[in-house]
């Protein structure tokens, strides 16, 4: 029983001095008309031009040791001047002056801001030291090599690890690259030479990640590495003696083998090696043992690339059942090595792709690979019949030219339709499909079928790093194009590990990742200015309800020694968890319950419409009404919030109890929440709350949630007008 008389420890009241509040009001060169009486009981300064350097410095200085309220233009514009400091912005230009509202509205807006700030903690920038000035690049394919090269060139130590015996990745196994059909050596060999020639790069082949610990700037990595055989005689004899045969994507080889990339030596494929010891008998220097190496790095590049989707899962195409149904890589390797000389080939695009039964997505590059294979066949053997079955040709951008060339000059036959089945016909195959353009069923007799199966990521590493994934690819890359958001884990994703990519895109991408790593590691500290949530350990003890853990879109709320904690490096400051906590234990700094509630109490007057607008979208739409000379009713008061997901029941109920006749919550369009699901969570809360307020005798229709994008100023005006007229 823990029932104790416990002293109330009021953490909020800072020991010693309570900072003073200073109010600055900008008239924007007399554009904003101020009310006749301005008495907030606080030191108030009227300024004329917020863009003057002197004024900015003066306010910055004031913000060092007092709470500053800055009323003037929209915070969207003002924030850039004040990246740090404890400043509460009040938008009296866009939301009062420009929409033609009476100057008196300024008083309630500023009073609200003062009250909020008095009940808020200071937002302090998080500084995380970069302890290790070195980087780990995982994956020795094109992406990894290119990233490593660029990071090392900046003078940073790089550990490059590759799980296969040889560098080169998927590209190393190819014959040629699209669109021109350039041999892979053009790209790969100079790249490997550059990497080998840089002393800052330490390469571990035949190595895998065993353990990852730590976080931004300070990772401890343990890798498992197996000996590279550089020294030793009679290695060719070892290969002959090796009893293990491996089908390496179409090419037969031993587990003891050679590839002309790096290392320039025979190596053992430990994934197939049975450790029989036949090679050791011939060459006693060979070590079959593995050792662990521990590395300390500050940043990680995940360049683990992709692999083919397992074609044998697509039952109707008989892969694994018929020897002459091949994947794209197997076909390319067999054909270019001269192992097969087909008279006819059917290439099936989108095999198992864009199909809910198999791979739901499009792998982006297969159409081009199909064209490349078709061209390869025709280049080598012009008399071979080549058919391409496709659903849609997605030869985007300049690849259209490749498509036209292959179709018109090379005489490859393109059939629109997804083959329904492949059956054996003597020693040939019969491909049955519909030709959609002709509107009839067709059958093609062929020597070989090449399946353009999709790509899947080649690793489960992202999960290990705590990066959310969708179909194995990192969610952030799948869903959005944002780039300014900080990289909280100092994990950068290069190349096809992010999503399927061609070689040129991979190289661009790898450089971008390298730039991110370099930029981070040359600093002493990584600085994050996003306010974070904190857990009040007086209220939330061990384990507790843990509901905020499920609410966080970033996995930033986690259990540390059985205690709910927030990882400040991962927290993006959305406030979804704060809104979820029913005990007030979880508070988003700068946007705490107490602060928000006092802002609402002091802002709202009888009959107002209180609008909580998301700073990423709807707030900007409201700003835009001002630029456009639109207006909306005077009684609409706007409170800026990081995300609609921050708005909780307390805030909505407080608005009503303070006299609001309607409450609007508006944020980003459905699938476009900056924090993934904040808007959906807000919608659920609003719908649940409508039932409740109806019981309280409040019209449930007066509580609205809307998706208002940043350009949708007219919609904003329509919505508030509608609410006002009810």
């Amino acid at each position, binding site marked *: *029983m*823990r*029932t*104790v*008389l*416990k*002293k*109330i420890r009021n953490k909020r009241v800072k020991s010693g001095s309570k900072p003073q509040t200073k109010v600055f009001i900008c008239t924007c060169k007399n554009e904003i008309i101020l009310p006749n009486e301005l008495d907030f009981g606080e030191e108030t300064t009227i300024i004329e031009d917020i863009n003057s350097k002197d004024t900015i410095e003066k306010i910055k200085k004031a913000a060092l040791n007092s709470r500053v309220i800055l009323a003037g233009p929209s915070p969207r514009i003002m924030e850039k001047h004040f990246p740090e400091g404890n400043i509460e912005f009040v938008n009296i230009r866009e939301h009062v002056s420009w929409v033609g509202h009476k100057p008196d509205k300024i008083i309630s807006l500023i009073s609200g801001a003062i009250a909020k700030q008095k009940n808020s903690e200071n937002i302090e920038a998080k500084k995380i030291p970069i302890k290790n000035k070195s980087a780990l690049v995982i994956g020795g394919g094109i992406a990894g090599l290119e990233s490593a090269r660029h990071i090392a060139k900046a003078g940073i130590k790089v550990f490059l690890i590759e799980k296969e015996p040889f560098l080169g990745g998927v590209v190393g196994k190819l014959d040629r690259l699209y669109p021109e059909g350039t041999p892979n050596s053009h790209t790969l060999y100079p790249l490997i030479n550059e990497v080998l020639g840089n002393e800052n790069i330490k390469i571990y082949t035949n190595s895998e990640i065993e353990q990852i610990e730590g976080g931004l700037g300070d990772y401890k990595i343990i890798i498992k590495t197996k000996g590279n055989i550089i020294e030793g005689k009679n290695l060719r004899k070892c290969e002959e003696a090796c009893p293990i045969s491996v089908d390496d994507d179409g090419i037969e080889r031993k587990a003891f083998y050679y590839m002309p990339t790096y290392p320039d030596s025979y190596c053992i494929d430990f994934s197939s090696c049975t450790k029989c010891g036949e090679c050791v008998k011939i060459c006693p220097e060979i070590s079959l043992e593995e050792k662990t190496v521990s590395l300390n790095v500050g940043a990680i590049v995940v360049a683990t690339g992709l692999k083919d989707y397992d074609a044998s899962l697509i039952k109707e195409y008989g892969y694994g059942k018929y020897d002459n149904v091949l994947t794209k890589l197997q076909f390319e390797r067999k054909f270019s090595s001269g192992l097969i000389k087909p008279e006819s080939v059917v290439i099936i695009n989108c095999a198992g792709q864009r199909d809910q039964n198999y791979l739901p997505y499009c792998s982006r590059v297969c159409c081009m690979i199909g064209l490349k294979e078709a061209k390869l066949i025709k280049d080598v053997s012009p008399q071979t019949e080549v058919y391409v079955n496709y659903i849609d040709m997605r030869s985007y951008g300049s690849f259209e030219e490749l498509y036209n060339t292959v179709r018109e000059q090379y005489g490859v036959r393109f059939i629109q339709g997804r083959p329904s089945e492949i059956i054996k016909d003597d020693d040939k195959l019969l491909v049955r499909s519909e030709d959609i353009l002709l509107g009839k069923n067709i059958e093609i007799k062929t020597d070989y079928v090449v399946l353009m199966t999709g790509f899947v990521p080649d690793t489960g590493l992202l999960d290990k790093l705590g990066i959310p994934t969708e179909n194995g690819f990192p969610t952030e890359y799948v869903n959005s194009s944002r780039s300014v958001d900080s990289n909280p884990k100092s994990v950068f994703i290069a190349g096809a590990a992010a999503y399927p990519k061609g070689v040129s895109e991979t190289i661009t991408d790898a450089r971008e990742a390298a730039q991110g790593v370099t930029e981070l590691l040359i600093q002493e500290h990584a600085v994050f200015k996003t306010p974070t949530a904190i857990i*009040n350990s*007086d*209220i*939330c*003890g*061990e*384990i*507790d*309800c*843990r*509901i905020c*853990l*499920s*609410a966080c879109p970033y996995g930033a709320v986690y259990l540390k020694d059985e205690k709910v904690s927030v990882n400040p490096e991962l927290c993006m400051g959305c406030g979804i968890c704060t*809104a*979820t*906590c*029913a*005990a*007030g*234990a979880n*508070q988003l700094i700068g946007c705490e*319950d*107490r602060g928000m*509630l006092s802002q609402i109490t002091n802002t709202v007057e009888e009959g107002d419409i209180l609008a909580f607008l998301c700073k990423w979208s709807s707030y900007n739409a409201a700003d835009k009404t001002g630029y456009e000379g639109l207006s909306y009713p005077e009684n609409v008061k706007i409170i800026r919030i990081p995300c609609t997901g921050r708005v*909780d*029941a*307390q805030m*909505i*109920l*407080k608005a*009503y*109890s303070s006299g609001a006749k309607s409450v609007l919550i508006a944020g980003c369009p*459905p*699938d476009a929440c900056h924090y993934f*699901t904040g808007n*959906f*969570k807000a*919608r*659920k*809360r609003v*719908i*649940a*709350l409508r*039932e*409740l307020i109806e*019981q*309280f*005798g*409040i019209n449930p229709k007066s509580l609205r949630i809307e998706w208002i994008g940043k350009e949708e100023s007219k919609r904003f005006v329509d919505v508030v007008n509608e609410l006002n007229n009810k």
Partner: protein
Amino acid sequence: MEQEKLKIAICRGATCSGCDIAILDIHERILAVLEKADIVFAPTIMDAKYEDVEKMGENEIDVCFYHGAVRDSENEHMARLMREKSKILIAFGACACFGGIFGLANVTNKKEIFKEVYHDTASTVNEDYVVPQPLYTDEMGHELSLPKFYDDVYALDDKVEVDYFVPLCPPIADQIMTCINTIVSGNLPPKGAVIASERTLCSECERVKSDKRKITRIYRPHEIEIDEEKCFLDQGLLCMGPATRAGCGTICIKANVPCRGCNGPTKEAFDQGGNFLNLIATIFGIEDEELSEEDLVKLFKQIKDPLGTFYRFTLPKSTLRRVKK
């Protein structure tokens, strides 16, 4: 020298008297209490007249336990009187702290209540609509008075200053003893303290919680066989633990009954019912994005009577205080 005994009063407002019984529930420990203290006023357990208290001097009573809400002028009169006569006034039980079950009357008002009680009920015949009046003079000229019935129910601190709060419905014996011992020791907590834990009830609860909190369907306790080991929320039962202050020792939960929130919210939460509904809304539903607005409306219809369920003990202390008149 023998220490002077403490003078204790137990005063009742709008109450079910469960709080009185709760005090008697300390059983033989009451003997130890009586060694240290005299009970000077406790209408439920001993003969007492209001005049006795009125005759007392200011601060003559050391501690007054006031239980029950403030529902009529008599309750308010006694609250003010006890405040005047007591050094320490304790809001005792959920009703005094938050309005409690009586506070649920804030969904209606005096007129409606009178109409229901004195007219509409099936067993009542009241054609002339005779309802209690605060003042009545009979034919002989005698004046009879009744307390004035209020429109709203109030918590004790809505009317008078309160020193300490002892919530729960009713307070439990251990908590009462802690409270009395602390006062006897003279080592008093700061004014306004709630004599319970600062934490949420989940911190005391030993049930196993799932890692990913998600509710797909809401059940009422009679609808399913309740697992005694698993968190109620994981079973789709509305347990108010996450929105409720700890300190009761999870007695209901140990009896396989979900928490109803009688210990009130924590110090940083300002609307127990709204907060709990908000929390449920966050984890309710399969995947946020997959449900249409209509689906969600249907889903939330599974929560019956959110006001009555989630503000069961705290309506007068909630943000909106009462249903709009």
